[in-house]
């Protein structure tokens, strides 16, 4: 039986949409940061700090971080349920999947709090 309890959106269509929306945000942020650093070859602290002083940049960064948390969960879930399966390793598979996803959840929550702190804490 396929259980949906460990999927992010609780069903495949929701996960499919979340994975793509988060992908667009992650792609936009990556391209923006690369373009900004590319446009400022001798990047100094004041310019860089000035960028992150803007409210829209902090919001954009936090949106990216939240997207990353969701995107990583869905991706990791897909990989685990494809390769760490009962067929491959018997009843240990579920325990291993829960442990890995649980570790990811803890680390990702820490990332989110850390990210919030680094964006608004300075």
């Amino acid at each position, binding site marked *: 039986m396929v259980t949906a309890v460990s999927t992010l959106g609780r069903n495949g269509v929701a996960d499919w949409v979340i994975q*793509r929306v988060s*992908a*667009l945000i*992650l*792609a936009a942020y*990556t391209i923006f940061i690369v373009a900004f650093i590319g446009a400022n070859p001798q990047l100094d*602290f004041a310019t*860089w*700090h000035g960028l*992150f002083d803007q409210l829209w940049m902090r919001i954009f960064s936090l949106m990216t971080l939240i997207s*990353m948390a969701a995107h*990583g969960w869905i*991706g*990791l879930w*897909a*990989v685990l349920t494809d390769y760490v399966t009962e067929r491959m390793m018997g009843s240990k598979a579920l325990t291993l999947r829960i442990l890995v996803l649980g570790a*990811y959840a803890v680390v990702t929550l820490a*990332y989110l709090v*850390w*990210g919030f702190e*680094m*964006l608004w804490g*300075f």
Partner: protein
Amino acid sequence: MNKKRPVNLDLWTIQFPIAALVSITHRVSGVVLLAGILILMWMLDASLASEESFLELQTILANPIAKFVLWAVLAALAYHLVMGLRHLLMDLGIGESLEGGRRGATVAVVIAVILILAAGWWVW
């Protein structure tokens, strides 16, 4: 369903088409990025915390090993980004056919290699 039908689950005996290779490497690069993001977040933190830590980060990134690690993370990011964009194009119905999938995968690999080399040039 006939349960006696032949199945071959020994993947090592199958020659993978390029679309399959691109798919599995997309996943590998994604898992690598789960760790890589820690490095990127540490860099962001150091770059924003203070001017001293910003300059300290620049010194650290002058180290060849640090350059290599950063390049590896950027390579995984570039690869995953290009393959992800290919997926989004395929969601729009572009390159969905067998031949289109092969061609799209080949083009994506070429673009990814160019970006990875560019990232290396940028880091060094």
